């Protein structure tokens, strides 16, 4: 049998590795900055782009799509070539993918800081960027499948299955969740409204965690862990079961993000049951990883790479045990909206994703530069800094979340709420300070790694094209050449189609009833579309990322009804494109904010929250007082809403601005009564109009 000589492309891996390190540090710095804003609100600099509501989406997007995204690509480009025993399908596509993705990251950072956002968590990017993501993702897909088809290895190793499922599911999630109605070049409204929007968004959000932060990284684990331990995976059969069960079950569990909300009960229960079932495949995968090291624990003592992998896989196990527990309604009632969730996701983000990325970098870079790691000791120090950092980050937040939830739910003997909302915030500030210390340690560790790897790169010589040889595939099936060849070529496609069917069934059965059956959301006749001024105000609310700290969803609990008012009904949100239920209450719920305070209270509160509520940690929004509302956009916004079925009278787009000015003027007059002079066209006026409308529709009987 003739062996063929060929070369692996290490250059593309190198650049994705550089991007991983760069965006990792950027994302962590943004994270540290927003963490500091919790106890030092002045660190928002009173400057719109560096205020929490804009910086927090930058942090999440940078960490998920830039840091972990580049980790995935670096790992896939390295492992796929070797698992298929061939160079990537097309160098040109690899580079289009690389520059396309980095361009998207830069565009994302700039637009998010400038306040262009769809207001849907982890899918904040506006429609032109959404299209760019789709195109680059297709390029990545062609490159993967091209490589798989020209491979010299008969069988598709399980890691490749995870890559295929990742690719196809992320494509589906991104497309379905990004249906939006463009208003202008950088502004759009979610196609879905209210409850449907929430269901689609959390089907997406949950599965973005599943198929962007979990399945591709599991694929990398199945390649790099055996490599680093120099032994095959503990049970390959278990990995097959792990794969199919995981991708099948994950897709159903999204509604557990919406327990006790206005989402129909049957959908909530479906989410709970599948979430509990998810423990089984997740732990199957974790044990498969850990058992691979059985009898090789002595290696873990010496090898920093394995240390990182062991903690990463353990964190994966912890987070995937905690996830189903959080999906239990009684646990969720306490944890939801609190810092418990932030702790939970950072076990996953810092522990699982971060440590996998570090381990892979420490393993790959010395090999690609053909030199030992510059300093094993430094890497071990990084490991300990990171591990201690995770502990100091998460434990205080678990404590904070638990404490705050219990304080929210405390009543006095007389039946009054025991604590003001603000008291529950100021009480946990020491925990916020500790959390940022943990984050700082973790960041210092990452910086040590960059230094260590830079030194390694400095003393090594890069192998841009790594020579390899293998027998071509067609020769193996000498008897039934035609048959074998076609059969093998079809298998990755079969896998692709099967994975798509498996995930699409879950998605469809979960969402179809909420869309097609006329029924799920009882209409409330008193709920009316927003006035033009309120709509503009709502866009400001979305632009400033208010939803990152304020929910608009009162759950049917005694304490929430006592604190915020009547619990939220599904029918109240039918005109909310996008929904703004939020997922975290750093500040109080705003679902029934309308009419609670006079207009002037909101004006002063935006100017400096601490004037109205001393001790508040809300940032200053003083620019809203100076900036003028862009009324020229009103007709286009009304038209977009009408296209999506919001019942404004035909032709209203042309007269909307007249109504807008009338309402703005009435707010101006009301402010003037409290000795506040402001032009009616200031942005603050529109925002006040929106805030004063919130939750009022069902009160007016």
């Amino acid at each position, binding site marked *: 049998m003739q062996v063929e000589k060929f070369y692996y492309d290490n250059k593309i891996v190198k650049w994705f590795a550089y991007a991983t390190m760069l965006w990792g540090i950027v994302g962590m710095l943004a994270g540290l900055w927003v963490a500091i804003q919790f106890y030092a609100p002045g660190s928002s600099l009173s400057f719109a782009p560096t205020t929490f509501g804009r910086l927090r989406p930058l942090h999440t997007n940078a960490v998920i799509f830039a840091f972990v995204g580049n980790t995935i690509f670096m790992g896939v480009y390295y492992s796929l070539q070797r698992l298929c025993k061939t160079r990537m399908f097309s160098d040109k596509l690899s580079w289009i993918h690389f520059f396309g993705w980095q361009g998207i990251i830069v565009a994302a950072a700039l637009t998010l800081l400038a306040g262009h956002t769809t207001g849907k968590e982890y899918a904040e990017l506006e429609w032109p960027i959404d299209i760019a993501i789709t195109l680059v993702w297709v390029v990545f897909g062609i490159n993967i499948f091209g490589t798989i088809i020209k491979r010299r290895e008969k*069988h598709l190793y399980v890691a490749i299955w995870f890559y295929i499922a990742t690719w196809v599911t992320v494509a589906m999630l991104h497309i379905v969740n990004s249906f939006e109605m463009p208003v202008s070049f950088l502004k759009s409204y979610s196609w879905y409204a209210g409850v449907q929007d929430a269901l689609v968004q959390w089907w997406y959000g949950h599965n973005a965690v599943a198929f962007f932060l979990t399945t591709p990284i599991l694929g990398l684990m199945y390649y790099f862990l055996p490599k680093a331990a120099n032994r095959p995976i503990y049970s390959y059969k278990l990995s097959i079961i792990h794969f199919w069960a995981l991708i099948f079950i994950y897709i*159903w569990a999204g509604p557990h993000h919406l327990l006790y909300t206005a989402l129909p009960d049957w959908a909530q229960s479906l989410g709970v049951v599948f979430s509990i079932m998810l423990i089984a495949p997740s732990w199957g995968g974790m044990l498969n990883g850990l058992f691979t090291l059985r009898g090789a624990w002595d290696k873990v003592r010496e090898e920093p790479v394995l240390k990182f992998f062991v903690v990463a896989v353990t964190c994966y196990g912890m987070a995937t045990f905690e996830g189903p527990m959080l999906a239990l309604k009684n646990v969720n009632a306490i944890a939801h909206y609190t810092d418990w969730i932030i702790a939970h996701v950072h076990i996953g983000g810092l522990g699982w994703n971060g440590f996998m990325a570090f381990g892979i970098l420490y393993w790959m870079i010395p090999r690609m530069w053909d030199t030992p790691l510059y300093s094993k000791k430094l890497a071990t120090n990084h490991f300990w800094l990171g591990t201690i950092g995770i502990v100091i980050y998460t434990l205080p937040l678990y404590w904070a979340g638990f404490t705050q939830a219990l304080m929210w739910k405390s009543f006095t003997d007389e039946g009054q709420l025991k604590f003001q909302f603000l008291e529950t915030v100021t009480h946990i500030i020491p925990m916020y300070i500790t959390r940022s210390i943990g984050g700082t340690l973790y960041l210092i560790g990452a910086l040590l790694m960059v230094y260590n790897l830079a030194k390694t790169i400095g003393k090594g010589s890069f192998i841009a094209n790594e020579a390899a040889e293998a027998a071509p595939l067609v020769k193996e099936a000498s008897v039934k050449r035609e048959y074998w060849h076609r059969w093998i070529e079809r298998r990755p496609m079969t896998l692709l189609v099967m994975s798509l069917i498996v995930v699409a069934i879950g998605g469809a059965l979960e969402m179809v009833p909420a869309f097609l059956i006329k029924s799920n959301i009882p209409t409330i006749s008193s709920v009316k579309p927003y006035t033009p001024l309120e709509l503009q105000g709502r866009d400001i609310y979305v632009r400033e990322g208010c939803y990152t700290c304020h929910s608009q969803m009162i759950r049917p609990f005694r304490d929430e009804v006592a604190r915020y008012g009547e619990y939220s009904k599904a029918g109240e949100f039918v005109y909310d494109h996008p929904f703004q239920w939020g997922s975290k209450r750093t500040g109080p719920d705003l679902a029934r904010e309308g009419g609670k305070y006079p207009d002037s209270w909101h004006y002063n509160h935006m100017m400096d929250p601490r004037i109205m509520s001393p001790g508040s940690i809300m940032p200053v929004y003083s620019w809203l007082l100076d900036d003028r509302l862009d009324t020229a956009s009103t007709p286009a916004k009304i038209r977009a809403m009408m296209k999506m079925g919001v019942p404004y009278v035909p032709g209203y787009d042309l007269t909307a601005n007249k109504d807008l000015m009338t309402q703005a003027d009435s707010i101006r007059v009301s402010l003037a009564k409290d000795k506040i002079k402001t032009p009616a066209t200031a942005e603050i006026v529109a925002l006040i109009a929106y805030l004063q409308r919130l939750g009022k529709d069902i009160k007016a009987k």
Partner: protein
Amino acid sequence: MKFLHYLEKITGVSIYPLSSFVIFGLFFLVMLVWVWRSDKKKIADISRIPLD
């Protein structure tokens, strides 16, 4: 498409969660049998691919 018509109670919605269970159950059983019956030697070979 307009998603604005939501009236009356949903009837027979239990078919959705039930069918999801049945589909998953069947799928899982078929997969278990398939994995159980797969060739041991071949599986061992495949699991060594990353190391070759």
